[in-house]
């Protein structure tokens, strides 16, 4: 039997997930709307003073993006579990970790990328200085893959359970502390005119580590969760 190559399988996986996401375009808009509304609530809650909003803008955008991603994370494997295609993926001859890596990439492209695109708007709503916005985008560009990869492992663990939304938050948020500290640290340093490369470099190192380890952990977790 002529088995298709690994690259072909990866591309097919990615295309399938992106097509599925595109067929339900409304779902892509949801996290973006959520982030917009949450950001809008902060000036209402804290008062519209420019200086206060400027000081908290970076952190608010990061936390809002994190929460929006958390909301979208639950759906990463759920439709595939319902129609049984995830079990087929586990049985497939291609390495499961690589296929899951592609699924995580597709999920990142459809949920995190739109959030990064509107992040300058969110930052501008809170009067973040224009010079800091590139650093914020860089921090988000490195922090969001970390959250997607870490989240994927935990979503895989809860794959066999029913109500998993709150549980996912309880498990994921403590593990996100380092990503949040370094991303917010970079933005705060840039805002004060200090060098911001060190926290960005730490984030980059963490992403490299997660890209290697998380798909493997995700595959192991999925095998545990589906092994009923």
């Amino acid at each position, binding site marked *: 039997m002529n088995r298709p190559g690994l690259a072909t399988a990866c591309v097919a996986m990615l295309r399938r997930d992106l097509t599925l996401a595109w067929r339900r375009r409304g779902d892509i808009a949801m996290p973006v709307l959520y982030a917009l509304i949450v950001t809008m609530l902060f000036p209402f809650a804290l008062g519209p003073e420019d200086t206060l909003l400027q000081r908290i803008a970076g952190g608010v955008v990061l936390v809002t993006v994190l929460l929006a991603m958390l909301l979208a994370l639950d759906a990463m494997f759920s439709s595939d579990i319902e129609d049984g295609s995830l079990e087929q993926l586990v049985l497939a001859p291609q390495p499961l970790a690589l296929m899951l890596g592609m699924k995580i990439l597709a999920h990142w492209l459809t949920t995190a990328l739109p959030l990064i695109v509107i992040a300058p708007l969110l930052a501008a709503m809170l009067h973040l200085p224009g010079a800091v916005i590139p650093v914020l985008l860089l921090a988000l560009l490195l922090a969001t893959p970390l959250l997607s990869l870490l989240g994927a*492992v*935990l979503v895989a*663990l*809860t794959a*066999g*359970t*029913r*109500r*998993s939304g709150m*549980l996912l938050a*309880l*498990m994921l*948020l*403590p*593990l996100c*502390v*380092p990503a949040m*500290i*370094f991303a917010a*640290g970079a933005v705060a340093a840039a805002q004060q005119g200090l060098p911001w490369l060190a926290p960005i470099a*730490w984030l980059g190192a*963490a992403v490299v580590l997660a890209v290697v380890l998380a798909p493997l*952990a995700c595959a*192991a*977790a999925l095998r*545990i*969760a589906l*092994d*009923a």
Partner: protein
Amino acid sequence: MSSWIPLWLHKLGSPPTFYRFAGTLRPWAMLLALLLGAVALYGGLVLAPADYQQGDAYRIIFIHVPSAEMSMFIYAVMGVAAFIALVWRIKLAEVVAMESAPIGAAFTFITLITGSLWGKPMWGTWWTWDARLTSELVLLFLFLGVIGLYHAFEDRRQGARAAAFLAIIGIINVPIVHFSVNWWNTLHQGSTINIFGKSKMSWDMLWPLLTMMLATKFYYAASLFNRVRTDLLALEGGKDWVRQIAESEARS
């Protein structure tokens, strides 16, 4: 070399043997825990001199430090048991890992409460976003996450394996969290007790502390044995040895 030690360990891994073993040891562990705990409390609260700077307020460390040490010790035990459970699929290791989590969460909670009681007069605040405090809080959430995931599954063994995996992820993450928060902000004093080299603490204060650490270990053992025995009975409900225990108890 004699081969009876590995053989005995293998036997101990079987639920009925461990049930009997834990049942025999549990009262002794509890007795030692109460005895040592009482001695340590007397030594710490009555015999030890007051601190020249902190006065009597420092005495809370006789609860705080052993609890903090236990919270990490239990997480380590849980991690090792989780690893054994995942690699060799030993049922007893799963039960030990899962039943350690609530005890560890309780010790972590006590650490946070006593720490904040002490922090109010000393630092002037109940809570501060310091590295050790934040790491301890994250540790509490990790314990709670493990407990939550374990109970989210309908099949208990599957839940135990999933939660064991989460515990191992946590073991990798706790040092990263601690390091990153340390980089971010720190106020808590460094450690005073040094295993290698001279401790920066007078012996009058040190011995009750060490005794209390021993007492909490025994308490953990007693509590764990009790919980594991209960869990084993529930898990092995249909097996013959459980029926024999139930019948002998019904007769007496």
